[in-house]
């Protein structure tokens, strides 16, 4: 038990660490996708985008893969439960998961998250996370 609690301090999201209400931080996630045809990032509106392979279109939704109530909210300020560091860590992995889950052959080759963060109401900053299909 002690080991679990102590080792939690070394996990970004402090899980199993009994760190209740550790932060009052907020994050606002904006998603973009990287496509083959252009160097510009294409914004993902309402968490969904249409892509095609061999002429067959398909609608992708961020919440198809990401059900987490914090990470699933896009384009609106959300309380970063268990802290900013933890949520950014999880978001990076969620991007990797989404990109890896997309079938081959689509135009989308990667996702970029631009996250506006506010740690305990102060120090506004923008964090950029990306995941590219390997």
């Amino acid at each position, binding site marked *: *038990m*002690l080991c679990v*609690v102590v080792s939690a301090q070394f996990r970004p*999201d*402090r*899980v*199993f*660490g*009994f*760190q*209740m*209400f*550790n*932060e*009052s931080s907020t994050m606002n996630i904006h998603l973009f996708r990287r496509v083959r045809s252009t160097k510009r990032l294409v914004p993902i509106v309402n968490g969904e985008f249409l892509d095609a392979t061999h002429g067959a279109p398909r609608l992708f939704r961020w919440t*198809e*893969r*990401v*059900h*987490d109530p914090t*990470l699933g909210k896009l384009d609106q300020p959300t*309380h970063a439960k268990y802290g900013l560091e933890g949520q950014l860590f*999880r978001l990076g*992995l*969620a991007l990797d*998961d*989404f990109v890896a889950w997309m079938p081959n052959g689509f135009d989308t080759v990667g996702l970029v998250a631009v996250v506006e963060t506010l*740690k*305990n*109401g*102060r120090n506004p900053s923008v964090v950029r996370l990306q995941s590219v299909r390997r």
Partner: protein
Amino acid sequence: MKWLDEERDAYLLGLMRCLLGVLLCIQTWDRVDELLTWGYFGSVFHLPLVPEALVPSELVYRLLLGLEGVGALLGVVGWYGREGLFAGSSIGIYLMLCDRLQFHNNRFALLLCGFLCAFCPSDRSFLLYRGKRRTLPLAARIAPTLPRRLIQFQVSLLYLSSGGGKALDPDWRSGQTMLLRFQAGIDEAVQAGMRPPHWFVDFLTSPFVASLGSKAAISLELGLVVALWFARTRVAALWAGAMFHVFIQASARVELFSFLMGVAYVAFVTPELRERTLLVDVRTRAGRVTKALVRSLDWLARFRIEELAPEGVGGGAVTVVERGGARRSGRAVPAALARALPAGFLVWPVLALFVPRRPAVVPATTGAGSEAGHG
């Protein structure tokens, strides 16, 4: 060492097992509800702490949730209750390790409490499946209660981790984090259609109040780590902790956490039963009402109820004889009752204000406290 081989009445541990079983049932049902609403976690983005190969398939996950629920139910009724609680909490901990996105401090704390309670001799009372014979006789209830100390230790560790983390955080110490929480709470209340009065909003969103509240919360949590262990401070600590959790329950989404802490506090109650005596004159209305009230609210079995002998009548309709033998009568009775009855515990300090400065205390020659403290 005294704790290692102490043997105490395990009656209250049965109550803990039963209540933890109820909480685990509710928690399991919440997870079933999440499964029905969101689908199987393993087929979407999840973050296991165990190797992916150990994450159960949907069918196995459903089966495990069912087993967790059955284990929790067994914990409630007491039929193989310890085994049920052990299985239920172990499955819950395993499933939590399969997806850290489903981790919540309150859920983990409940599972740990259930796990520890399964190692306690909690199968000697509240055996609901036995009907009226649900409590074993005293001789059969006396058992080693070291795991009870482990539950106490877990409660202290929880406060230490929570309070310590806040104490090390400058934003918590300054009140900034709490100020934002207060503001968020007010925003939520407004969104829900409530209209808190301006003075209340101004009060809560004042940096001074937030700073004071922060320091009080940190001090309280760190104070509880120690105060719960000493007989002199235990009752006050339990009261302060209970108030703290009532406030948290009212102001934040913490699921079953406050209820869990209420149950965990039972581990700090003196295990021996009915060491207080309630003397009532049943010929009076006050005596009859008090008797009925205590009989229905004495969930921790603190009182032995006796009817006043005719020659004893004259000192009031109701008298409470404390564990140490002190007698409380008149205006001191409500406080003496509230101190030992969970339903009245929160108002105990208020009632204590009405106790005369020099209460009628008559040391008795009989009765001895085995572990001074709450209950």
